[in-house]
């Protein structure tokens, strides 16, 4: 148990890093952060390292983006063109709005300095002087703590002109979103940041070529930024040894739904769902029927051993037609009607469709929720099921951005594993599981 890669939290060599201070009283304050060696890493990097070395370290450490896509962070940073005299930006995407994901929230509320330190390192690595943190509008406490942290960092000379006396200038603007899921999509986020309507932009040009205000921009998830701090603090070796060959490092997983102990758990990448759901989550409440592995847009798995024993990394889940996404695991209990559960999700995506492209606006935004409503009203026909399947084919991969795909993937996942529940509902005019009183003691 004490040599080779660390892929379980039970390994004694593992200890939480990202979430070490979450939940500790006053952990969001400058005093607390400084007393645990805060900003020493950034100071060290800025004083003793070169930008190229930092980017190389990140690539060697094998950090993959934690926002859902899993794109190598170091590679993304290396895409930034060299300075041309104009402004270039780093943006921290803190618009966490995917159902089932709430990891960034606690980082923002309880450890905002970790993010600021990561932003400083990112700015140094990419040789730029200005950053934005785009924070979800509903995260008010996170915004307050983050804003205070930025203010304190500025006062302490960690942000602003000539930080740490190294001659480097860097400052951060905290921007609050106004309640749109689509703003988590990086190009829509940039539009929103510029004060425009939050519609996704055409790619190419990619943000590194023309991002915020048409200038080179790199956008990273909160957890990726925090990870950068940790890699610089603990070293490349430490990070590269965590997790599987495919996905390295440690990851904050979230469990919600019918689970004994919902919450956040930092595990090395490659730990199994069983470890997360049973050893830390305490097992399902009642009988588990299915679980969504990585935020609402990831296709669900039935509650079976073969899936529970699957390691949580990007490659394995992709091979099984799902995705790790944000690591937000949602547990669906046996008694929950799967069609009803999907209706809940579909309504969410219908509500959040930005309206730019046709399949998403008309299909996801209008037609699909009505189909589910019809099924649940007991008025469905076998033809309706075919219609949902066919519509899914015509929407997925053909819309402008991934929002429509995010709606279709769980639908297709549910049809793959729980088609019989749809068929039962159509045949009998009532769901296979009729429990409605979820909120009663």
């Amino acid at each position, binding site marked *: 148990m004490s040599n080779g890669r660390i892929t379980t939290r039970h390994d004694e060599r593992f200890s939480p890093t990202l979430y070490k201070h979450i939940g500790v009283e006053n952990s969001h304050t400058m005093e607390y952060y400084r007393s645990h060696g805060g900003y020493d890493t950034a100071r060290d990097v800025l004083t003793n390292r070169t930008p190229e070395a930092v980017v190389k370290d990140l690539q060697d450490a094998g950090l993959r983006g934690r926002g859902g896509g899993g794109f190598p962070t170091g590679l993304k940073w290396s895409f930034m063109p060299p300075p041309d005299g104009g402004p270039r930006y780093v943006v921290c995407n803190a618009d966490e709005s995917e159902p089932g994901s709430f990891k960034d929230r606690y980082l923002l509320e309880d450890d905002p300095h970790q993010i600021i330190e990561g932003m400083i390192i990112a700015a140094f690595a990419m040789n730029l002087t200005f950053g934005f943190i785009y924070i979800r509008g509903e995260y008010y406490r996170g915004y307050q703590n983050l804003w205070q942290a930025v203010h304190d960092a500025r006062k302490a000379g960690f942000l602003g002109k000539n930080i740490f006396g190294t001659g480097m200038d860097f400052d951060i603007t905290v921007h609050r979103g106004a309640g*749109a899921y689509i703003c988590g999509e990086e190009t829509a986020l940039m539009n929103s940041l510029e004060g*425009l309507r939050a519609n996704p932009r055409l790619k190419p040009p990619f943000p590194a070529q023309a991002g915020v205000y048409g200038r080179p921009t790199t956008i990273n998830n909160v957890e990726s930024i925090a990870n950068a701090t940790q890699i610089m603090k603990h070293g490349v070796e430490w990070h590269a040894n965590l997790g599987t060959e495919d996905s390295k490092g440690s990851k904050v997983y979230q469990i919600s739904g019918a689970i004994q102990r919902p919450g956040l758990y930092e595990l090395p990448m490659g730990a199994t769902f069983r470890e997360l759901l049973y050893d830390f989550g305490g097992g399902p409440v009642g009988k588990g029927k299915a679980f969504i592995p990585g935020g609402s847009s990831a296709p669900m798995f039935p509650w079976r051993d073969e899936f529970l024993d699957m390691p949580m990394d990007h490659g394995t889940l992709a091979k099984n037609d799902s995705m790790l996404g944000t690591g937000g695991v949602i547990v669906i209990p046996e008694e929950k009607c799967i069609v009803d559960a999907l209706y809940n999700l579909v309504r969410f995506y219908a509500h959040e469709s930005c*309206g730019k492209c*046709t399949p998403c606006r*008309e299909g996801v*935004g209008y037609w699909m929720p009505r189909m589910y409503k019809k099924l649940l009203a007991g008025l469905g026909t076998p033809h309706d099921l075919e219609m949902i399947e066919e519509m899914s084919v015509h929407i997925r991969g053909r819309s402008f951005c991934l929002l429509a795909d995010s709606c279709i993937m769980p639908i297709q996942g549910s049809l793959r594993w729980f088609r019989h529940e749809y068929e039962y509902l159509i045949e009998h005019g009532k769901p296979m599981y009729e429990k409605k009183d979820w909120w009663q003691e």
Partner: protein
Amino acid sequence: MKVTIDGRVLEVEPGTSVIDAIFHAGGDVPYFCSQEYMSPIGACRMCLARIGAPRKNPDGTWILDEETGEPKIFWFPNLMATCTTAVMEGMVVDSTSKDVKRAQSSMVEFHLINHPLDCPVCDKGGACELQDRAYEYGEGVSRFEFDKRHLEKHHPLSELITLDRERCIHCKRCIRFFEEVPNDEVLNFIERGAHTYIESVEPQLASNFTGNITDICPVGALLDTTSRFRGRNWEYEHTESTGMDDSTGQAVILDARTGRIERIKAGHNDEVNKTWISDGTRFGHEYADHAARLKTPLVRENGELRAATWEEAAQKMVEGFAKLDSKDIAFGFRADSTIEEGHAITEIAKHFGTTRVDHHPRAAVSLQPRQRGATLQDVATADGILVFGDVTEEAGIVDLRIKDALKGVDPAPLMNHGPPIADLRLKERMHRKTEILTVAAPYEANLMRHAARSIVYDPGREETILGAFLAVMRGESPGREFLEFKDEIEAAVAQLKGAKKGVLILGGFILNNPAATALAEQLASQLDLKELRVGPMANSRGLEYAGFYADNAEDEFDALLANSKGIFISHLNPAQAAPFKASFGRAEFIVVHDMFLTETAQLADVVFPATSVYERNGTIMNLEGRLLPVKPAPIGAGTAQDLHGVAKAIGDAVGKRLNGRSIRSSRRELKKTLRLELADVPRTGQLITQNSKRAASREYMESLRGDVLMVPSDYRVEYLPYNEHLLKEHGLPSLRLSPASAETFELRNGTEALIEIGGLRRRVQVVVEQSWTGARATLPALPEQPVGDGYSLVVVSRGASADVELAS
């Protein structure tokens, strides 16, 4: 770059979009959001196709297919929107297979679920892209069984444009048009998802080019209010002609039905107006069908005008002029008459033994640049532009072409199917190179919002401002008057010195002043700028080109009116101004050729009913020197005739076949002098770089200075009372005043007033411009009070018309 489209191999330029490659190859895919001359956005997802491309090994060689030995095609995992995908070397496109067709038909289905099936009552029916594409690519049945979205059906975006929100398919063309083409952002989407709708934040649409969105709307959501519910598309007779409302020669399509012009749409002329026209040109046609138009000639009998036949009227004119000495007879006509008409009126004059003919309004200088002339393409590709004037109002298309230049994207070459449908160089919210543009005008012109440097000078100080530029060129100070603009002028000169394709644009304010124009010429030659001169009317340059103007001071229009005993006047109304009315009193015999019973016609002895510009056949020359054909729309206006008709009637009356009695006769004669067959001028025009004649500069009327400056307007002020919708949209002509001037004349913002300027009474609405300083006032020009003139202001009465009547 070699690509294979559905089995057909062709060469296209790198950077071409796949959709253009498909159309270039003769194929077809449906699309709603792409639009010529605008950015592709990939929103409608109609133009899906299966695309594959070969890949290279790390050593740069192609990865080969093991079986065929050809480069292996790697198909993209998803169907791609072809409008936003650029071609790649060796790319293979499949736009016709069953899967692709099925994907396209499914997108049609998505488009139709919330689109009302009211085609039978929709004005777009029969000319609707959605309808056509649904027929071509749709399945013909809808599987959508829920309620459609219900929204406002008649939302007036302005008095001229009505929006049906249910019909909107969210292609974003209208929103992008405003942002990309005139760069007046007045529309956007509100709400999101299926609730998305189009709205303007401010009431009305603050732009001079709003009507274009009705042309590009792929469905019947945006409609021209003037033509709404007035006819079906297949009932209209389309006439491709040239717009006569300003000097740019914009291509238009006149749509007539049962003898009326119902609407005007933009024509396509890639080098002139592309597919955009200004609102004045589009909506300013209602006067042509107004009930007040003269249908028959009138002759004066016992002091009263009575209806008569053309024979009678012509006889009366011949008799009337016969009593006068031929040197006392003079002819004046309007500067939007065609070149052929100019010939006809000259021949009529010749018949009566006189050469005293002039057109009006006329610039004080030749409209042909002394050095190198600029075309509109030159403007669109310029890297330095200096504008003197307000081109947004004076020549809207010049404004749009300047905005093309600001985008820094050269015009795309035409492809087999015309301009590219999806020019990937164009983007939404592109960076505008405002630093290449400098604008100087005697008031805050709209174009100044887009210019890095703008200079507002006092009216009448054209010579001084040009002098200031020349002084800075010599390295001197711009002078005390323009000290506050020292930085702007220096920066402008520095920018233009560095420019390789600089253009100088001169509006009416400069061209009315020969001395200022001479200085501008110096500036152009010192900075090596091409020059574009904005003439006062549609054919100003053409009439100069063909030589139909007075080249001595005694025969110029104003002098003609004052010093003649017999006057023939076409389409002009000088008698609305008191001084001319008095001088007319001295004339012994007046013949008027006009559409309405104007003040001048009321004084006439003979009145001929005239055709509107939409009923004319002939040729004009636009501000670049481009000959363009004007074609008559089939509309009924009684016995109205153009000047050829007058020539013929006079010839008949005297038993002679006058030259110019028909357009053919005029063209035959003009061929001898111009060495050009005007009948052969193509629809897109023929550029003549050198005029056969060049008008001499006229004297500058120092006297024409005063409180109110006459400024250009996009719409034709003289016809405004007859243009119902345009009048509703704009209200009365605006008298714009600085707060100081408003105080002097005791005029309040938003009120109506009756004013007298230059002896002419005009009803105006008062607009106080809070940002204006000093004593300043402007009023839209009339042909009789052209751009650049200034008059002292007398307020006759304040308040609405009812109050005025009480007061008088």
